[in-house]
C-alpha cells in the first residue's frame, strides 16, 4: 500500500515542469483535500513531503532545503548513492528534522551537531566495523556511471514511509 502511494506520488511529481508550482493536491491518494504534496526537485532527486493544512507551504519548502543542506553537510557533497547506501543514516538525519510527522528542529547547525554527537558515539563503539570503508567507496565508484532513472524511486522509497505519518 505504501509502495502504491510512493509510485503514484512519483508519477504525479515526475511529469510536472520545473516552472509550475511546488504544491500538489493529492486528493484521495494521500487522504483527502486537507493534505498537500509539497516537493522540491534537486538534479535527479525529488524530495516529497506530504503535509496537512496545519503547516505553512513555503515553510515546508524551506524545510526541505534545510534537510538537503544538512544531508550535504553530513555527507560532504551528498549524492544519490550516499542516500542509498546509508539509508539508515538518512533516516537518523531526517529524524532530527521531523519527528513523528512534526517539525522538530529547523536550525541546521543544531541538527548537524546532533548527528556529529551520534557519530562520536558510534565511533566509540565501533572499533570492529571500521574496516570495510574502502570496499564501500570502491563499490560506489564502480556504480557511478550508470545512475539509472529508478534511483529516484529508490530515494522516494526511503523518504515517504516516514513522511506519510506527517499528519
Amino acid at each position, binding site marked *: 500500500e505504501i509502495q502504491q502511494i510512493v509510485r503514484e506520488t512519483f508519477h504525479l511529481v515526475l511529469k510536472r515542469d520545473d516552472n509550475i508550482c511546488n504544491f500538489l493536491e493529492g486528493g484521495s491518494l494521500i487522504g483527502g483535500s486537507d493534505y498537500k504534496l509539497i516537493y522540491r526537485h534537486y538534479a535527479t532527486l525529488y524530495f516529497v513531503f506530504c503535509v496537512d493544512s496545519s503547516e505553512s507551504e513555503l515553510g515546508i519548502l524551506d524545510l526541505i532545503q534545510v534537510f538537503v543542506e544538512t544531508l550535504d553537510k553530513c555527507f560532504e557533497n551528498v549524492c544519490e548513492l550516499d542516500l542509498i547506501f546509508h539509508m539508515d543514516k538518512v533516516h537518523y538525519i531526517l529524524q532530527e528534522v521531523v519527528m513523528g510527522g512534526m517539525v522538530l528542529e529547523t536550525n541546521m547547525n*543544531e541538527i548537524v551537531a546532533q548527528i556529529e554527537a551520534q557519530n562520536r558515539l558510534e565511533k566509540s563503539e565501533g572499533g570492529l566495523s571500521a*574496516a570495510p570503508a574502502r570496499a564501500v567507496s570502491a563499490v560506489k565508484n564502480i556504480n557511478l556511471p550508470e545512475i539509472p532513472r529508478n534511483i529516484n524511486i529508490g530515494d522516494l522509497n526511503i523518504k515517504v514511509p516516514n513522511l506519510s505519518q506527517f499528519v
Partner: protein
Amino acid sequence: MPAVSKGDGMRGLAVFISDIRNCKSKEAEIKRINKELANIRSKFKGDKALDGYSKKKYVCKLLFIFLLGHDIDFGHMEAVNLLSSNRYTEKQIGYLFISVLVNSNSELIRLINNAIKNDLASRNPTFMGLALHCIANVGSREMAEAFAGEVPKILVAGDTMDSVKQSAALCLLRLYRTSPDLVPMGDWTSRVVHLLNDQHLGVVTAATSLITTLAQKNPEEFKTSVSLAVSRLSRIVTSASTDLQDYTYYFVPAPWLSVKLLRLLQCYPPPDPAVRGRLTECLETILNKAQEPPKSKKVQHSNAKNAVLFEAISLIIHHDSEPNLLVRACNQLGQFLQHRETNLRYLALESMCTLASSEFSHEAVKTHIDTVINALKTERDVSVRQRAVDLLYAMCDRSNAQQIVAEMLSYLETADYSIREEIVLKVAILAEKYAVDYAWYVDTILNLIRIAGDYVSEEVWYRVIQIVINRDDVQGYAAKTVFEALQAPACHENLVKVGGYILGEFGNLIAGDPRSSPLVQFNLLHSKFHLCSVPTRALLLSTYIKFVNLFPEVKTTIQDVLRSDSQLKNADVELQQRAVEYLRLSTVASTDILATVLEEMPPFPERESSILAKLKKKKGPSTVTDLEDTKRERSVDVNGGPEPVPASTSAASTPSPSADLLGLGAAPAAPAGPPPSSGGGLLVDVFSDSASAVAPLAPGSEDNFARFVCKNNGVLFENQLLQIGLKSEFRQNLGRMFIFYGNKTSTQFLNFTPALICPDDLQSHLNLQTKPVDPTVDGGAQVQQVVNIECVSDFTEAPVLNIQFRYGGTFQNVSVQLPITLNKFFQPTEMSSQDFFQRWKQLSNPQQEVQNIFKAKHPMDTEITKAKIIGFGSALLEEVDPNPANFVGAGIIHTKTTQIGCLLRLEPNLQAQMYRLTLRTSKETVSQRLCELLSQQF
C-alpha cells in the same frame, strides 16, 4: 569533517545493496532478495546466538528490503532485542526498524513498551531521545495508554535537557492528536505555556506547535499563551537579522517560529487592547518588510520571508477586525497574483479566497477579478487554475455573477477532467444563488449539461427541476427552452431527463404553439427514448403517462407505444412494470382520477441545496461553510432549497401509482422511503424521508400561505423538527383538508396537540370540524388529521393552526396560517363575450368594483398567468377581451347562504412591468378579498 563517516557502515549490507543494484531485471532482484531473506531467516533461527553487530546488520538488510517494496514478516523480535542493547548504534537501528515496520502484535508491543520505559527512565538524553522518537513515530493508542502520563512530566521537569524537551513536546503532540482522551490536562499545562519564554528557540518552536493544537480544544486553559506569543513574536520581528544567529535563515529571523506563533494566535480572537497594539505593530512591520528590497536574491530568502507574510495575512483575515490591515493584505496579495513565482501566485489565490469572505475586504478582492479570470485562462498549472476557480467562486456576488458564471462555463469547455465536476457544481450553485432572472438560471444549467453533461451529477439536474417546480414564473420558459434544446440531434442523456421531467409537468404551457404541439413534444422525446439508459427510459414512461393526462389528444398514440412489445415485454422489470401499469391506468381511470393521480408536482420543501451539500462533501466542510456563513445576505428563498426527490424504487409495492411518479424513478441510489400508510400520506412521506439533513430556517409561513392560494397541495411549514404537509379538495361550499404532521427527528413528540383557531368573527363564516390526533408522534413517523370545512358566508381572515408538543424536555409551539381562502369555493363559469360584458356592466356600482394596480413580482409570462388564474378557481375566458393581452375570468363563489358571481379582468403592461387587476362581484367584501388574494400572485 563530514558528520557521517562513510567508512563505518556494515560491509555485508553494502555488498548486498550493490548486488541489488547490479541486478539487470526485476526477476533477478527478487531472486537475490529471496536468497538474502532465506539467509537471514536461517541465521535468526540458528542455534548460535548472534552478536549485536550481526543482528544489527541483518535488521538493517530487512529494512532495506522493506523499503524496496517487499513484505517483511519476521525480524521484529530481533529488532526488539536490539532495543535493550547498551550500544547506541544497535539500539538506534532497533528503534528505526520498529518505527518503520510497526507491528500490532500485542506481545511484541509489551516488550517494546518495556524497552521504551527503561530508556525514558535512563536519564541518558540520547536514549531518552530515541525512545521519544519511537513513541512519536508509532503514535498508536497503545503507546498513548502507556506513556501519555509520563511524557508531560519529562517535558516540564526542570533538569530535562533542551533537545529532550523538544522531543517530548512533539511526542506529546503526536499522542494528543491520535488519542486526545488519553492525554490528561493538569498542572503541567501552565508550565508548558511558559516554555514560550524559553531561551532555546528550538524548544519554543516545538512548544508552540504543541500549544497550538492543545489550545484549539482547550482555549481557556491556554489563554495566557496569547500575550507571551505576541511578545515573543514582537522580539523576533523587530530583531536585527543577526540577533538570532543560528535561527536566522537566509537573513530572515526565525521564520518557522514566526509562522508557528502566528498560527497559535489564530486559535484566539483579537487580544486585549494593550496586547493588540503590539500585535498590530508586528503585523504592520511584517507587511512593511514585504515592500523592502530583498536582502538576498536566493529563492530561500523570499520563501522564508513570504512564509511569514502569508501567515501574518492569515491572522489578519482570522481577526477580521482591522479594515486597514485587511485592505493592505489584499493589496499585497494582489501584487503576488502577478508575481513570476508560481508558488506565490498559487498561495495568493488561496489566501484571497478567505479574504473574499470578509465584509471589509470583499470589495477590494473583487477589483482583482480580471487578473483572476486571466489566471484561469493562462496558468499552466492545474493546481493554480483550481485555486483561481475557487477564488472566483468566493468573490462572486450578485454584481458579478453573470460574468463569473459565463467565464466558468467557457473555461469548462477546456478544463482538466479532474476538476470538471467541481466546476459544474460551482456553476450550478452560483447560478442558483444569484439568479435574479430565472430564465438566466435555466439557460445556464442547460448550457452546463450541453458542455459537460457527463460531469453533471444527479444533484444538479434534480435541483433545476426542483427550482422550476417551486417557481411558477419560470415554468413556461423552462418548458420552451428544454423543448428547443432537445431539438439538437445529439443531446446529453441528462438533458433528456430534465426535458422529460419538465415537459411532463409543464408541457401544457407551450402546447398552444403548433411548433410544440403535444404530438410534436411527444415525438421529440420518444425519438430519444431508444438511445437512453433504463433509468431515463423509466422517467420518460412517466412523462408519457403525464402527457396522457395533460393532452387527451395524444392518449391513443401513447397507449400504442406503451402497448408495443418492446415496452410490455421489456426485459427490464422496472420498464415492463411501468408500461403495464401506465397502460392500465390510462385505460381504466376516468379523467378525474387521472387528473388527481397525475396532478402537477407540489412544491418541494425548502431545504439546503443538495448541490451545496455535495460540494461540501467534496471539498471538506470548512471551505464551503465559511463562505456560506459570511454570505448569508443572499436570497434565503432560493438558497435553502429542497433535497433531491428520493425515488420510490418500485411501483409494484405501492398502492398508488402516483407515488411512482413522484419519484423520478431514475435515482437508483435514493433511499427507500418508509412504507406508506396510504396513497395520500405518501405525498408527504416522499418528502420527509431524506430529512436527516439539518434544514435551514423554514421560510416565512406567509410566503407559503400565498403559495397555496392557487394550489391545494404541498408543504405548508417545515423546521428542524416538524414538517406540515397539506392536501385538500373543495367542492362548492364544502371542503376537506388532510394535514400531515411529520416528525423529522428520531425522538418522540409528546402531548402533540394541534388546534384550529378561528378568530371571533371568522367563526360565524367558516365552519371547521376535526378530530383530535394521537398525542404521541414517534420519531420519523407521520400522523394525519382531516379537517372538514364548510363555508357559511364569505370571509376574509384565515384560520390559524396552532401546534403544541414536547420534544426532548422542551415545549414547542408553532403557529401557521391555514390556507383556507375564499377563492377555494370558486366554481368556474364559462360564458360568451357578450354575456360577460353584459354582466360586467350590470356590476357597475362603485362598491362592487375593486381595482388594484401593482408592480409585477415575477416575470410576466402569459402561460403562467393563465395557469394561475385557473388555479385561483375561476374560468379563464378566451377571446372575450378585445385586447388579446388581457385576461378575463368568471366564476361563482359558493357559500352556504348565498352564491356570489365574480368577474375579473387582468391587464398586464409589459413595458412598465405592471398589472391592473379589476374585480367585480355583487358583494363589496368579496371583491375586496379576491382582489387582495389574486394580486399577491403575480
